[in-house]
C-alpha cells in the first residue's frame, strides 16, 4: 500500500506517494534523480549512500522511506551549494583525498557530520568518525589530512 510521504530534500518540500518499505536510496536515485549517493553494499556497511537526516548521518540503503516522513534530508546535491562544501572540496583536492571517487560523496557527508559536532577533531576522532565509510583506494590517510586541512582553513565555518 502506498502512503503519502512528505519530507524536505535539500531545502525543497517533497511529497511522494509510495510504499514506505522502499529503501530511501532507491527513492532518491530512481524517483528523484538524486544520484550522488551511491550503492556500494546495500547493507549499511560501506557508507557510499550516506545522507544527512535532520543533520545526522544515516545510510540511505537501509533507511526505510517510512522513517523519512517529516524529516529534513541533505544529500551531496544540496550540500555542494554550501561554503562548507567548498572548503572540503578544496581540501580534498589539495590532499589528493579522492581517487576512484565512488566513496567520496558519502565521505563528504560523513565529514560534515563529524565537523558539525566536532570542529577540531583529532586524528583518532576522524578515524572513528569515518568508520562507517569504506574506501578501497586511498588507505584513508589523505582523507584524514584533507579533513584536518578543511577544519583549519575553514575555521569558523563549523
Amino acid at each position, binding site marked *: 500500500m502506498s502512503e503519502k510521504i512528505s519530507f524536505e530534500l535539500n531545502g525543497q518540500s517533497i511529497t511522494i506517494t509510495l510504499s514506505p518499505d522502499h529503501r530511501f536510496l532507491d527513492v532518491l*536515485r530512481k524517483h528523484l534523480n538524486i*544520484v*550522488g*549517493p*551511491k*550503492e*556500494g*553494499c*546495500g*547493507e549499511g*556497511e*560501506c557508507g*557510499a549512500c550516506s545522507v544527512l537526516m535532520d543533520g545526522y548521518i544515516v545510510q540511505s540503503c537501509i533507511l526505510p522511506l517510512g522513517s523519512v516522513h517529516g524529516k529534513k534530508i541533505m*544529500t*551531496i*546535491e544540496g550540500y*555542494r551549494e554550501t561554503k562548507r*562544501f567548498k572548503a*572540503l*572540496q578544496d581540501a*580534498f*583536492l*589539495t*590532499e*589528493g583525498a*579522492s*581517487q*576512484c*571517487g*565512488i*566513496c*567520496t*560523496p558519502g565521505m*563528504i557527508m560523513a565529514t560534515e557530520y563529524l565537523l558539525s559536532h566536532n570542529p577540531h577533531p583529532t*586524528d583518532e576522532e*576522524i*578515524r*572513528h568518525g*569515518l*568508520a*562507517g*565509510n*569504506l*574506501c*578501497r*583506494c*586511498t*588507505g*584513508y*590517510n*589523505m*582523507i*584524514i589530512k584533507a579533513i584536518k586541512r578543511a577544519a583549519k582553513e575553514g575555521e569558523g565555518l563549523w
Partner: protein
Amino acid sequence: MKEKQNISVGIDNVEAADKIAGLAKYTSDIVIEGMLYAKTVRSTIPRGTIREIKIPTLPKGYYTVDATDIPGDNIVGMLRDDWPVFAAHHVNHIGEPIMLIVREDKAIITEIVNKITITYDEAEPTFDFTDSCEQLSFQKGNTKKAFKEAKKIIDYTYETGYQEQTYIEPQGFIGYPENDGVTLIGSIQCPYYVKHAVMQTLGASEDLVRVIQATVGGAFGGKEEFPSLMACQLAVAIHKIARPIKMIYEREEDMEVTTKRHPAKITMSAAIDADNRVMAIKSHVGLDGGAYIGLSKVVLSRGMLASTNAYTIENVTARGDVYRTNTVPNGAFRGFGAPQMIFAIEMFMHHIAKDLNIDPLTFRKAHMVKQGDLTATSGVFRDPVIMNSMLEEVLKQSNYIEKVKQYQHPESNKGIGMSWFLHGFGFTGSGEKDKIKARVRLKKDEQDNVHILIAAVDMGQGPKTTMRKLVANLLDYPIEKVIFNNPDTRYVPDSGPTVASRTMMIVGGLLARATKKLQDQWVAHQEVVTEESYEQPSYVQWDNEAMHGDAYPAYSWGINVCEVEVDRQTYEVRVRNMWNIYDVGKAIDERIVLGQADGGQAQGIGYGYLEVMNHREGKIMQKNMTDYIIPTAADTPPMENTLMDNPYPLGPYGAKGVGELTLVGGAPAVALAIEQAIGKKVHTIPVTPERIMELIDNE
C-alpha cells in the same frame, strides 16, 4: 622562456572536483529511456551436468537469454579460452551463469528467477590441488649441483588465502543496440578486451561492437577480465531483444561470483653453503585457478618471476602449477601473483636467517641485488639499483634496528617487520611486442586543443591527470587545452589494457613520443594527428618457452616497514605505523604516486592480517562487506612514504611503474612484525587472531 616546473610536483586531480561534488557518472547512474534489467540465473552446485531446467510460463515480454542464443562462440575470449559465456550442459562452480532473465520490472524478474528449478546430475567436485592444467618452470645455473654441495638445506611451505578486490562500485554494464551492432558502457579496465571478447561471442565484425568506459569506482584488477564475461552475456541479450539493458551486480552476487586473488601454496627450499650464503633456491608455486583458467597461467608466471625477489641467487629452479578446482574462477588482482610469492620469499629469507642464527637484516643485505646482477631468469638488472640508500633512509625513519632489539622482549607484545620487493612493469617478456602491440594517437584540432586518444582507463589511479600533465609539460602548453575523455573504442586506438602497472611507462612513453612528433608537425589552426606504436627496447631478449632472459625491461623497487602490537587476551593486531620508500624512477605526479602508495599499502597489509575469505564445499563464506573485512579508517595506520628519484632512461621523464609495487610488500611486512610480537614463525596469511591463538597455543 619561463622555467619549466619539476614534473613531479603534484597538481589537483582533474577528475576529483566532480567526483567530490557527486557529479561524476558511474555506470549505475546512467539511465537510458526504455531500458530493461537483466538478472543472472546461476548454478547452485559445484559440479555436475544440467539435466533439466524448468522455467515458469513467462509473462508477455519477458525473456530468457542463454547459451542457445549465442550467435558466435560460447567462450569468453581471454588468454586461455576455456570460460563459457553461459553454462550449456556442465556446471563447474557454484554461481556459474546459466541464463539471464530480462525485462523492466525487477520484482517480476526476481519472482521468475526464484521459480526456475534446475535439476543436475551431480559429479564429485575437486577442491584440492590435484588437477594441474597449466605448468611452468625455469632454471638458472645448476641447482642440482648446489644442493649436492650444500652444507645445509632449509625447507619451508607458505600458504596464502583469497583476497577480494572489494572495489566499492560493484561490476556493471549498460548496453544498447546501435547501427546493427551493440554498444556497451561499463565499469571496466580494458575496453579492448571487452570489445574483442564480445566480437568473438557475437561473431561480429569490429565495426559492430563499441565499448565505452564509464567512470570506474575502483577496480584493482577485478575489472580486468571479469567484465568481458558480463559484456558477452549482455551483448547476446541485446542482440536477441534489441532493447537497452542494464546489468549491475548486487554486492553479494559480486563477491560470490567474480574473480579473486588466487589462493597459493608455495614450497621453498634453499641450499646454504659454509659461509651461510644461499647458493640455490628451489621453489614450487601452486595456484588455485578455480573452475576456469582464464589468465591464471600469466598470474603463475608473475609469481614465479618474483621467486628471488630483490635478492641475487646464483642457482634457481622455479616450477609452478595452476590447479583446476570447482570454485569461482580466480583472476587478476593488483600484484598478479607477486604478492603470494613475495610473501613467501620474504618470510623464507627471514626464517633461513633465524635457523642459521644470523641477524636477518645482515643476512638479507648479503644477498641484495646490485646493478649488473642477473635476475632469476638470467636477465640483467641494467639500471642503477639504489636499494642500499633506500634501506639506509627507511632504517633511519623507522628506527628499525633499535626497535627490533626493544621488541625482542616477549612482554612487549610489539613487533616490527620489513619487506623488500621489486616489480617489473608491462607485460612479461615480449608480451608487449607480440600480444599487446600498443598504439596511441594524438589529435590537435583546429581550435588547437590536443586530444589524447588512448584506451587507458582512469579507475582512480590518475592517468586522466598524469597523461594530460605529461603531454602539456612536453608541449609547454596549458593543461586545460589537453583533452582526455573516457576511452570509447570508436575513437581511440588499442593502447592495451589498463593493467600490469604499464600505463605510464608503456602508454605514457608512447604518448611522449607522439607528443614530440606533434610538436614537430604543429601547424596552428589545422588538424594534426600523430601516432606511435610499441617497439621493444633492443636489449630485451626473452625466450618464452624456457622463461629465460629479460622478463621486464626495468624494475621499480620498494621497502615497507610495519610496526604492530598484538593483544595478549584477544590476539587482535593493531598496526601502529608504516614507513615506506620507493624507487619508481620519476614520479609524474607525486601526489598521485603517494596516493597509490597509501592505498596499495592498506590493501597489502589487509591481505596480510585482516582479509579472510574462504569457501566451504565451493561456496564463498564471506559474501558481503560485513563478513569480508577490509580496513576502515580506524584500522589503517599512519604511513610515512618517501619517493626516490632514479630516472629510467626509456621512461617518460624517467618514470617506471607504480600501481602494483605499493601492494606487494605489505603482507610480509605485517606478517614479520606479528611474528616478532608473538615470537612464533608465521607461514600462512592472513595472520588472523584465530591463527595467532593457534600459533601461541601450539608451543
